[in-house]
Structures are given as C-alpha cells and as structure tokens.
C-alpha cells in the first residue's frame, strides 16, 4: 500500500478520471467543474446584474456538493496520503524554471514564488494570480467548459466544438508559457 503515498502515475489517474466521469453519467449528471463558478456568481447575487446568472441554481446544487468534496479530497490528499509534496518534474524543466526565477522548482507542490502569503505581499504575485483567475473564469464560460467539460467529457463524446476549445486551450497555454512568461518573469 506504500504506493498510495507516492505520486500517482498517469495510468492510474487517467482511468480514475474516466471512472469519475462515468459514475456521474450513471447517476444522471455530467462531469464539468467550471459551471460551478456561474452557480456561485448567482448565489452571490449576480442574477440582478445579468440574465446570464438568472437560472435555477438549485438544479446545480449537486455539482456544488461535488465541489465541497473536491476541497475535502485535496485536504485528505495533502495531509493523509502524501509523504513528500515535492513534484519531480523533468530536470530540464527545473533548469528552465530556475532561470525564470522559480527556485522552488522540483522542491515543492506549487511554486513558493507565487503561492505563499509572503510572495503575494510582493503584489506582483497577487496580480498574476488574480489575472490568471479572471482569464480562467472568463475563458471557461465563453468556451462553455473547461478541462473537465471539454477535454474529458466533450471529447469523449467526439464533439467537434470541444476539439476546437481544447485546441484553443493549448494555443493559449503555449502562448503564455513560451511568449509571455519570459516577459512576465
């Protein structure tokens, strides 16, 4: 059972994600995480500002429960199922990241240069995280889904719109990492 405490390989994680999607399908629901952001906006009163948020949020209550579970799952994974939180990425990637100023590469789960309160106090990290979040929320709703809704659920159903969205995800990601990161960091 020692393997549980090690990072899980892709051939364990991928099939488990497919299993989660099918569990949700067989329970009469679907796998999609970003729609919860819309539901949460409605709960915060956004329905008075735009009819986009004027929908029966209770029909999405089940998905909010999944989200609560995902939070608890993160707590369990980090606190009870891990011995070492560092992520063993490719040594070449570590070298690249150190050149960009990410000295925590290879030694942490998330870069301490962005995800500590100390870093956030330096304002630059705060702005980066905030803008990253805005792009994620805006883009996911514009595209009608995120990694779970398009890359997993949509492509599993051979949906052309999802393929277009996933190509878009990669164009955006590649532009960010290859063209914009050298300017930002």
């Amino acid at each position, binding site marked *: 059972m020692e393997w549980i405490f090690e990072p*899980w390989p892709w*051939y*364990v*994680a*991928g*099939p488990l994600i*497919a299993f*989660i*999607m099918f569990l949700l*399908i067989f329970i*009469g629901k679907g796998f999609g*995480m*970003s729609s919860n*952001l*819309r539901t949460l906006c409605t709960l915060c009163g956004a329905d008075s500002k735009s009819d986009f948020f004027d929908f029966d949020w209770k029909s999405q209550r*089940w*998905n909010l*429960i*999944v*989200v609560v579970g*995902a939070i*608890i*799952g993160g*707590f369990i*994974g*980090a*606190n009870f199922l891990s011995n070492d939180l560092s992520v063993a*990425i490719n040594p070449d*990637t570590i070298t690249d*990241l150190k050149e960009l100023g990410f000295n925590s590469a290879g030694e942490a789960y998330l870069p301490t240069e962005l995800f500590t309160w100390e*870093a956030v106090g330096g304002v630059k*990290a705060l702005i980066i*995280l*905030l803008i*990253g*979040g805005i*792009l994620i*929320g*805006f*883009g*996911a*709703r514009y*595209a009608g889904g*995120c990694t*779970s809704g398009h890359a997993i659920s949509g*492509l599993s159903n*051979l949906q052309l*719109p*999802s393929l277009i*969205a996933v190509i*878009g*995800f*990669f*164009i*955006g*990601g*590649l532009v960010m990492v*290859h063209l*914009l990161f050298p300017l*930002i960091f």
Partner: protein
Amino acid sequence: MRSIGYLLIGIFFGIVMFKSEAASWFRIYEMFQFQSFHMYGIIGSALVLGVIGVQIIKRKNLKNFFGQRITFIPKEKSFSRYMYGGIIFGLGWALAGACPGPIFTLIGAGFMPILIVFAGSLLGTFLYGLLRKKLPH
C-alpha cells in the same frame, strides 16, 4: 442519500487531482513545455476510456442507475466562442497553473493564495456574464 454520493465522488476526484499532481502548477508548465508525458498520459488515457465507454453506452442504449436512458446533449455548433474562449482559458490555465477542478482541490490542500485565483475566476465568470452579448459566439 444522493448528496452523500455526490460528496464521495467529489472527495475521490479531489484526491485523484492532488495525488496525480494534475493540481500542480509545475506539471502544467512542464506540459506546455512538452517536457513530460505525465499530463498527456492522464488526459489521453481518460479520453481513450471515455470514448470507448460513451460508444458502449450509446450502442447498447444503456440506462443509468435510476433506470433512465442515458442521453448526451450535443454541444452547440460554433467556432468563435470555442476558439476565443479556449485561448483565453488556456492563457489563464498556464499562468495560474490550475484549472477549475484543481482550484478547489488546492483550497483544501491548504495553499491559501489559490483563493486569489478562485476570486479571480468568479470575477472572470461575472465579467463574461456582463459582456456576453457583445462577444462573438
């Protein structure tokens, strides 16, 4: 009773996201640098099984746990919303190193600055709601 089911599925999902390191900023960066098979293996293997499973459900007209036939709603046809929205999402995915599922997982894992990403994602969703009618779909 069903609520417990949703909660358990969510917990399982959160553990898988955390333990597979799909919730790690470093893995996302490495993926966009094409320097590891890890993330492609996760998404690819989920997808291969997903495609096979969906085909089986459709061809055998399988019913769900409650005896209803499983139907898949096709996505609305369009190009611009998926491409433009996708690019914007991808920019954010690479910058913050998290997509919506892992954002929640990381809150639970105790990386509290992820709350800034979470707040941003709510703001971004809200902005889309305000600007939606002015955007090409």
